């Protein structure tokens, strides 16, 4: 997204969730969101098979003895 699109996304999503969306706050939040978006794009390139379940309650697996 462009910087302008990120600002619009933050403003609209904040309204949808009932969060305060004054101009200064939207600009600060958008800066954080933009950094995260860049990271999310990298993660999006990972191929996750459809049957891979979500790790909702994550449990580390013990190695076989």
């Amino acid at each position, binding site marked *: 997204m462009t910087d302008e699109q990120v600002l619009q*996304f*933050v403003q609209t*999503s*904040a309204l949808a*969730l*009932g*969060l*305060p969306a004054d101009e200064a*706050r939207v600009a*600060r*939040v*958008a*800066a*954080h*969101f933009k950094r*995260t978006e860049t*990271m*999310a794009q*990298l*993660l*999006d390139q*990972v191929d*996750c098979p459809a049957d*891979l*379940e*979500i*790790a*909702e*309650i*994550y*449990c*580390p*697996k*013990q*190695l076989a003895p």
Partner: protein
Amino acid sequence: MSLHNLSSVDIAQGISKGSFSASEVLQSSLDRIEATDKKVNAFTAKHVDRAIQKAQSIDALRASGASLPPLAGVPFAVKNLFDVQGQVTLAGSIVNRHHAPAKQDAFLIQQMAAAGAVLVGSLNMDEFAYGFTTENTHYGPCRNPHDTTRISGGSSGGSGTAVAAHQLPLTLGSDTNGSIRVPASLCGVWGLKPTFGRLSRRGTFPFVNSIDHLGGFANSLDGLATMYDAMQSPDPLDPGCHVKKVEPVLSSLQHGTQGLRIGVLNGFFEDNASPQAHEVVATAAKALGVHAQVQWPDATLGRIAAFIITASEGGALHLDNLRHRIEEMEPLSVDRFMSGALQPAAWYIKAQRFRRIYRDKVNALFENWDVLLAPATPVSAPVIGTDWLEIQGQTLPSRAAMGLLTQPISFAGCPVVAAPMWPSLNDGLPLGIQIISAPWREDLAFRVAKQLETLGICHLKKVEL
């Protein structure tokens, strides 16, 4: 004798032998806190009456001739996200001030009390644990005992500081992305982040349920092991506690490192480390006779996934606070909480699904290795208020970058002992290492840590306050 400088093991033995009483140990700790806490700001509350009562009960137990539990009379304190009966659980916020007081102690405090330890107070932290610096706007920044112009690390900053300042030998903290290991590194004390799901989290204020761990800090490795053993227990009332049995580490602490396959993490863990961080790992590796370099799988993606999950779950947890009390929230983290609340669900779900792939890759790595070494922080403690760090030519946001090297490890759930080290050219500031083992194998990390302590490589230093 300065009782506040003693390790928990020496304190318990001294009380058992009658060299001093639990009440004397407590008074020494309270005096030290009184003398130093204005300079370091570790404590947000002291629980003096209950501490006196507990110490007196230990002294009465000894007078009766009964055998004493392993931490009898040892003072400790907890990050203020642990429930303490009769106290409001602040979790570093002012938003929580109007909550009802806790009806009972957190599970781990109960475990510590059963082992004879004396709860003395609650400790400073980043608001709602979202930070690596404990620059808490509401309660003031926690200050590093080795240089009070610098941060202690976070989010368990008070827990690291209290041990480094010799106020107490043991403290408890939490670690989602590095919040025990970062302050342990910057304060120069021992820290433990156990396997995800090892210790019950019941009775603590959550941050990110799918990544939160509890653990502790100590001024000696034996003390850390004793505390860890005392806290272990299955807890059917915590769905995040996966253990079925206690697996103590104290009994195998002296087993040495012979036969262990030990390596040093390279790649991501080198690229994001300062020369001082490189030095401490090289020093530890040389002492252990370790030469192998090991690549951690998908470290960058692991960190990204942990970052996204943290932001989403944290933002969702505090949605009502963001809606109605946003002006009372920590200015240093509130915008990150809000950004997390707005993240698309697809990002979060992708990150959670990736965690399954990541777990299998990390476990595959540990088929060939027992213990891996890495720096705990990219740099030593920055000056309070630092916004940006330069690491190997990269300019990074300071408050997030302090967890760069811890985040990929905890995302896999691996246990880590954070060991205190002292780079040669660092103005006396510590920078610790992570001693990492496979999930559920804390014993191996402890054995390597013990070897490094025995060799004189990892240790605490006295502070002048």
